[in-house]
C-alpha cells in the first residue's frame, strides 16, 4: 500500500476492484466502513461477482474477469474529457510534460514500437524521453536528430534504469547496447506538444470510449458512465480538496497483464492527484499476514532484501553490478531529483557485510562473488516447469502448499513425481507432502513414484514470535502464545539445523564452492535455535566502526545499532540485512514492538505504534500532499508541510522527501524514480509489455480483442510447451469464463482441517448464474462438472442471481466462480465427503511478463451436470 489500512478512513471515495476486502480482509475493511460513516465516503465495487464487498457498495458493476484495463482506461478517458484532473499536480509531479522521442508508436494495432515477433520481446529504445530543454508553448517542433540519445548507448544490460530494470529473463540480451535515460529531458509544461506524455496518453485512451468499454467489459455504457462520473466527481473542476483511493488485491495481479492493470490504476490516481495524500493512493491488500514481509525480505527470485536487484551472470564484479542497478537522475534541467536509489551502493555493501561479515572485504569486492547469479527466470511457474522437465531435482516447501497453489496442479503433481526428493515443513499433512495420494494415482502407480518425501513438523503462527509486516508496511512484533505441540519445531530452528549440518559437511568434505556457506554470518547466541530478536536486529543494521555524521557530529559507536538507512555506508563500516528495515531496531530498542496509541493528528498515523518502512513513514510520497509551495492541498488533512521559518519539511507524518529541499528548488516528490516525478509513461526497461497499459485479452478468451483483433493477447506473453500446457478456445466449447477466489470462512488450504471453519462452509461449490443453471437444468446443490482444457473440477452448484449473464462484444456470455480451498486432505476430504478435485487443476500455466504471476482469473471452461 502507498498508504495504510487506517488511512482508508480519510478517504472520500473508494474504487474497490480486483479485490474483495470485506471477505478476504474483513478486519481491515473496518476502515472503509469508517470512511462511509464518518465522511459519507462512497464506494464503487467492480467485480465479476456480487461479493460481500459489493453488498456494501453504493455502486456495483459486474465486469468480465480480465477486462480491468479497459474499464480503467475508460475512466482515464472520462477524466480527461471532463477536466476531472489535477492540473498542477500533473504538470509538476508527473512526467505529463516530458517529451517522448520520435519513433515511439502507440499500439493502435496492438503493438508498441520495437516489437520483435521472433523473440516476442520489445526493443525499448524508442520508449524514451527526448533530450533537450524547455519547449513549453512551442507547439510543434522540427524533428530532433536523436543523436543525443544514440550517443548515450553504453555496454551492459539495463544500465542506468534503476532497480526497475528488465527482468533477468532478459539477461541474455545483456551483450547488446542498451540506452540510458537522458540526463536533461525535453519538456512542455503547457502539455501541448504532440509528443509530450500527456498528449500521447490522451491519444492512447481516447480509444477507450464508453462503447468500447461496454464491448470489452460487458458493463453497459450507462452504468460505466455512472461509475466514471462518481469516481471522478471528487475532482470536479480541478478542485483539490477531496481524495479518492483505489483498493485492490490479487484479482488484479493474477492476469497475463496484471502489472499493467495496477499501472493503469496508478496513472488514474496521478491524473487525479491522489497519490501521496491521506485517503488516497494505490493500495494493494496483501493476501497473507506477512506477504509484504516476505517480499521485502526477497521472498521472490529476482530481488535481494530491500528490492535490490539480483545479480546476473553479466555482473562480473561489484562495480559492473552497481553500475547496472544504480540509476542516474533524468529530469528537466531546471528541476531537481533526489534520486534516492543513487544510494544503492551503500545498501548493497551493507547487505554484503551483514551476509558475510569479516569475509567481505574491500579487497574481495565485499564478497560480491558469493552471491548467486541468476541465469534465467526462476519464478514460481518456472520452478515447477523446470522440475517437470527434470532440471530441478529437489524442493524445499516451507509454509506453502505447492500442489494446491497451482496453476495446473496436475502438472505440479507430475513434476513432483519426477523429483528425487521433497522436503515439506507444515503443520498438517497437506496435498504437497502427499501428492502421491492424489486422486487418479492408483496403488500400482504409487509404487512407481521414486520421490523421497521428508515431512517436518513446523510450528503454527501462534507458536512463534517475530514480526509480521502487514499491507501497510508496518512491522509488528508478536509474542509466542503457546509452544509447538509434540515434536513440532520452530521453522527457524529447523532451517538452522539444516544449515549447520550442511556447513559441517562442507567443513569435513569440502565442495565446489564452499566459501559462501562457510563464511556466512551465523553469530546467534544459540545457533541451533536462533532468536528472532537477534535476526531482527541484524536486519535493522549496526555500525562496524565508529561512524560520525559530519552535519550533526553525532557518532554511532562500533557495534551499536544504526538509527536508520541514512547512516549506511559503502565502505564496509556498516552492516544491514535490509536497508528499508533499517531503523526498525535501534539503540533505543525494538521500534517494531512499540504499542503507543497516540494519534495527535487524528489522521490515523499512530507514529508510536510499531514501525513502518521506510523510516516509520506512514504514507509514501507524502510531499505530493502539498501544492508547489509546500502547503497541504487540503488544510483539514495535514500530513507534512514546508516550514518557512525552519527551512524544513515538517509534519504529522515523516516527510518522504529531502527535508531541507525548499519548494522553490522544485524537487520532484517521487524520490525513488530517477526523474523525481510519477511516471504516467514508463520509459525503457521498466515494463516488459509497454510504457502505457493496453487492454489485451486473457490467454484464454471468448472473443478477439475489440481494440485490435489481430493482436488479441499480450504480445510478450509466452505459452509453455509441455504436454500438460493446453490452452482452450471458445471454438472447442470452452465458452464460459471462470474465476477463482477465497472465502471469508476459510484460509487457503489449512482451515479444511479445522472443524469450526468446516462447519461454516463444509464443502466446495461452484457459483453458477441462475440463467445458466436454468439452461443446464441444474438446481442448487446438484453436482456440476467444470472442465478446462487441462482438467476438470466437480462440486455442487450454488445457483445465484448475484452473477448475471453478460453481453461481451455483443455476444451473451456467462461467468462462473469457484473457491480454491478444497483438496484431497482435510476433515471432509478424509471422510470422503467431497469430490477431491482441486480448483487449480483447471487453471492455465501462463504468467504476467512483469511480475510472473499466473493467470488464475478469467480462463475458459465448460460446465455440465455431473
Amino acid at each position, binding site marked *: 500500500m502507498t498508504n495504510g489500512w487506517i488511512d482508508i478512513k480519510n478517504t472520500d471515495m473508494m474504487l474497490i476492484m480486483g479485490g474483495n476486502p*470485506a471477505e478476504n480482509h474483513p478486519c481491515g475493511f*473496518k476502515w472503509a*466502513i469508517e470512511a462511509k460513516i464518518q465522511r*459519507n465516503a462512497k464506494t464503487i465495487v467492480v467485480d465479476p461477482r456480487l461479493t*460481500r464487498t459489493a*453488498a456494501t457498495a453504493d455502486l456495483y458493476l459486474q465486469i468480465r474477469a480480465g477486462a480491468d484495463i479497459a474499464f480503467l482506461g475508460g475512466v482515464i478517458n472520462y477524466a480527461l474529457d471532463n477536466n476531472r484532473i489535477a492540473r498542477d499536480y500533473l504538470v509538476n509531479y508527473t512526467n505529463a510534460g516530458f517529451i517522448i522521442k520520435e519513433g515511439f508508436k502507440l499500439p493502435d494495432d496492438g503493438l508498441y514500437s520495437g516489437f520483435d515477433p521472433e523473440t516476442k520481446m520489445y526493443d525499448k529504445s524508442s520508449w524514451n524521453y527526448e533530450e533537450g530543454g524547455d519547449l513549453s508553448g512551442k507547439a510543434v517542433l522540427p524533428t530532433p536528430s536523436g543523436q543525443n540519445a544514440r550517443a548515450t548507448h553504453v555496454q551492459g544490460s539495463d544500465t542506468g534504469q534503476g532497480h526497475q530494470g528488465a527482468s533477468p529473463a532478459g539477461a541474455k540480451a545483456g551483450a547488446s547496447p542498451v540506452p540510458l535515460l537522458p540526463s536533461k529531458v525535453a519538456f512542455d509544461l503547457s502539455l501541448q506538444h504532440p509528443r509530450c506524455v500527456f498528449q500521447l496518453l490522451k491519444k492512447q485512451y481516447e480509444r477507450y470510449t464508453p462503447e468500447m468499454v461496454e464491448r470489452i467489459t460487458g458493463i453497459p455504457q450507462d452504468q460505466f458512465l455512472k461509475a466514471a462520473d462518481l469516481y471522478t466527481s471528487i475532482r470536479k473542476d480541478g478542485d483539490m480538496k477531496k481524495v479518492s483511493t483505489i483498493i485492490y488485491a490479487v484479482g488484479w495481479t493474477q492476469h497475463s497483464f496484471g502489472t499493467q492493470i495496477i499501472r493503469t490504476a496508478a496513472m488514474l490516481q496521478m491524473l487525479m492527484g491522489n497519490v501521496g495524500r491521506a485517503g488516497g493512493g494505490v493500495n494493494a491488500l496483501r493476501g497473507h499476514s506477512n506477504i509484504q514481509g516476505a517480499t521485502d525480505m526477497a521472498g521472490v527470485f529476482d530481488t535481494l532484501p530491500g528490492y535490490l536487484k539480483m545479480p546476473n551472470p553479466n555482473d562480473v564484479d561489484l562495480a559492473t553490478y552497481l553500475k547496472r542497478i544504480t540509476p542516474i537522475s533524468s529530469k528537466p534541467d531546471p528541476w531537481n531529483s533526489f534520486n534516492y536509489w543513487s544510494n544503492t551502493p551503500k545498501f548493497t555493501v551493507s547487505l554484503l557485510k551483514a551476509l558475510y561479515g569479516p569475509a567481505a572485504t574491500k579487497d574481495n569486492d565485499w564478497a560480491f562473488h558469493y552471491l548467486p547469479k541468476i541465469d534465467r527466470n526462476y519464478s514460481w511457474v518456472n520452478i515447477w516447469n523446470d522440475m517437470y522437465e527434470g532440471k530441478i531435482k529437489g524442493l524445499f516447501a516451507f509454509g506453502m502448499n505447492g500442489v494446491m497453489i497451482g496453476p495446473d496442479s496436475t502438472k505440479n503433481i507430475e513434476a513432483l513425481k519426477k523429483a528425487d526428493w521433497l522436503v515439506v515443513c507444515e503443520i498438517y499433512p497437506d496435498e504437497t507432502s502427499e501428492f502421491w495420494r492424489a486422486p487418479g494415482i492408483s496403488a500400482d502407480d504409487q509404487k512407481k513414484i521414486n520421490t523421497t518425501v521428508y515431512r517436518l513438523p513446523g510450528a503454527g503462527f501462534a507458536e512463534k514470535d517475530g514480526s509480521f509486516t502487514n499491507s501497510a508496511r508496518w512491522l509488528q512484533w508478536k509474542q509466542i502464545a503457546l509452544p509447538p505441540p509434540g515434536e513440532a519445531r520452530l521453522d527457524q530452528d529447523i532451517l538452522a539445523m539444516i544449515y549447520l549440518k550442511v556447513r559441517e559437511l562442507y567443513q569435513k568434505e569440502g565442495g565446489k564452492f564452499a566459501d559462501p556457506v562457510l563464511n556466512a554470518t551465523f553469530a546467534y547466541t544459540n545457533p541451533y535455535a536462533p532468536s528472532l530478536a537477534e535476526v531482527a536486529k541484524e536486519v535493522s543494521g549496526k555500525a562496524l566502526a565508529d561512524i560520525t555524521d559530519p552535519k550533526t557530529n553525532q557518532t554511532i559507536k562500533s557495534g551499536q545499532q544504526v538509527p536508520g538507512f541514512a547512516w549506511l555506508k559503502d565502505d564496509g563500516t556498516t552492516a544491514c540485512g535490509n536497508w528499508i528495515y533499517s531503523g526498525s531496531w535501534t539503540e533505543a530498542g525494538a521500534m517494531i514492538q512499540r504499542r503507543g496509541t497516540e494519534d495527535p493528528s487524528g489522521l490515523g498515523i499512530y507514529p508510536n505504534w510499531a514501525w513502518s518502512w521506510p523510516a516509520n513513514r506512514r504514507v509514501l510520497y507524502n510531499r505530493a500532499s502539498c501544492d508547489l509551495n509546500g502547503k497541504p492541498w487540503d488544510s483539514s488533512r495535514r500530513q507534512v508541510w514546508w516550514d518557512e521559518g525552519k527551512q524544513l519539511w515538517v509534519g504529522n507524518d515523516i516527510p518522504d522527501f529531502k527535508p531541507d529541499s525548499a519548494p522553490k528548488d522544485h524537487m520532484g516528490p517521487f524520490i525513488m524514480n530517477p526523474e523525481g516525478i510519477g511516471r504516467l509513461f514508463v520509459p525503457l526497461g521498466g515494463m516488459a509489455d509497454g510504457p502505457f497499459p493496453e487492454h489485451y485479452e486473457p490467454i484464454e478468451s471468448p472473443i478477439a480483442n475489440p481494440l485490435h483483433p489481430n493482436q488479441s493477447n499480450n504480445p510478450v506473453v509466452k505459452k509453455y510447451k509441455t504436454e500438460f500446457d493446453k490452452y482452450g478456445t471458445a471454438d472447442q466449447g470452452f465458452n464460459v469464463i471462470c474465476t477463482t477466489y477465497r472465502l*471469508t470462512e476459510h484460509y487457503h488450504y489449512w482451515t479444511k482441517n479445522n472443524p469450526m471453519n468446516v*462447519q461454516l462452509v463444509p464443502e466446495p461449490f461452484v457459483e453458477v448464474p441462475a440463467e445458466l443453471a436454468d439452461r443446464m437444468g441444474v438446481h*442448487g446443490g446438484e453436482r456440476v462438472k467444470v472442465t478446462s482444457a487441462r482438467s476438470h473440477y466437480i462440486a455442487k452448484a450454488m445457483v445465484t*442471481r448475484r452473477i448475471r449473464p453478460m453481453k461481451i462484444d455483443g455476444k451473451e456470455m456467462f461467468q462462473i466462480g469457484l473457491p480454491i480451498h478444497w483438496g484431497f486432505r482435510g476433515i471432509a476430504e478424509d471422510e470422503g465427503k467431497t469430490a477431491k478435485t482441486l480448483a487449480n487443476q483447471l487453471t492455465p500455466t501462463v504468467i504476467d511478463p512483469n511480475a510472473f504471476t499466473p493467470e488464475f482469473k478469467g480462463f475458459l471452461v465448460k460446465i455440465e451436470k455431473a
Partner: protein
Amino acid sequence: MSDRKTLQIQRMSAHPGPIPGTGVQRDVQVCKLVDTTTCIGCKACEVACVEWNDMPFGATTFDNTYQTMPETRWNFWNLIKFNEHPREDGTVQWLMRKDQCMHCADPGCLAACPADGAIVQYTNGIVDFNQENCIGCEYCVSGCPFNIPKLNPGTKKVYKCTLCSDRVGEGLEPACIKACPTGCLKFGTKDDMKFIAEERAKQLRDNFGMEKAGVYDPESIGGTHVIYVLHDATDPERYGGLPKNPTIPWSYTVWKWLFKPVLGAFALFGGLGVLLHYVTVGPRRPQPEPPNKEGTNGNGD
C-alpha cells in the same frame, strides 16, 4: 472487576408471587445494535458465539447459500442470514442479517413458559433461559415470533442466545460484539443504541440515497433489546423472515394479560396461576401459523 454488577431479575416465567430481590436496584436497559448496512457477513460473530458459549460443533451441509445453516440451532445461537433480494431493475441486493434472540421487552417465550423460573427477564432487558428449570415442553418455541429457542433433543432442554448475560453481568460486551470487525455491532444502553441507530438511518436517507432506511425496534412486542438498522425498514421480511409486526400468539398472551397484574398481589394463590395456565393453554398442540414464521426461508435465495 470494578464495575461488576449483579443481574437483577425483572420478570420470571410462571412465577407466583413477587420476584426475588425486587426493588433492590435498577439496571440500565441494555441493547445490541446491528447495522445491516455495514455487516459484511463474515461470521466472526457466529464463531465468537460458539466459542464463548463452548458449544459443540455440528455438521452442516451445503444448501445453495453462504448461510451456515437454515436456522439457529440449540448449539448455534447466532446466525447470519443471507438473502438475495431482487430489485425492480433486475439487479440483486445481497442482504446479511445477524439473527439471534431479540430479547423482546414483552417476551413471548417467557409468556408461554409454564415452568417456574425457566425463563427470566432481567431488569436490564436480557431474556435468559435457566436450563435447570426447563421442562422441555417447547412452549417457548411456539411463543417466540422470531423462531429462536431450540430444543436439545439429547437433554430435552431448550437453549438460545443469552445476550452473553454472563459477560454483561461482569461489565463486558457480548462475545459477538467483541468479535465484529467492522463495528456493525454495537452494545450499550437502549437509549444510546436507539440514538445511534436513528442517526445512522438518517445518514443513509440523507447521504446514501436509501430513502426507506430505518430502525427495526417493533412496538408490537414493546420493542426489543436487539435493534436493526435496515436499508429498507418498510420491508423487514426481505432480511430472511424478520416479521414486520411480530406478535405473541393470542393463546399465550391472554392469560398473562388477565392474571399477571394480580399475581403479585395474590401471591398466596400462586398455585392457582400454574393451574390456570394449564387450563388456558392446555397440552402443547400445533399453533396457528404465526403471520411471519421463519425457518423455511433460510436458503439465501
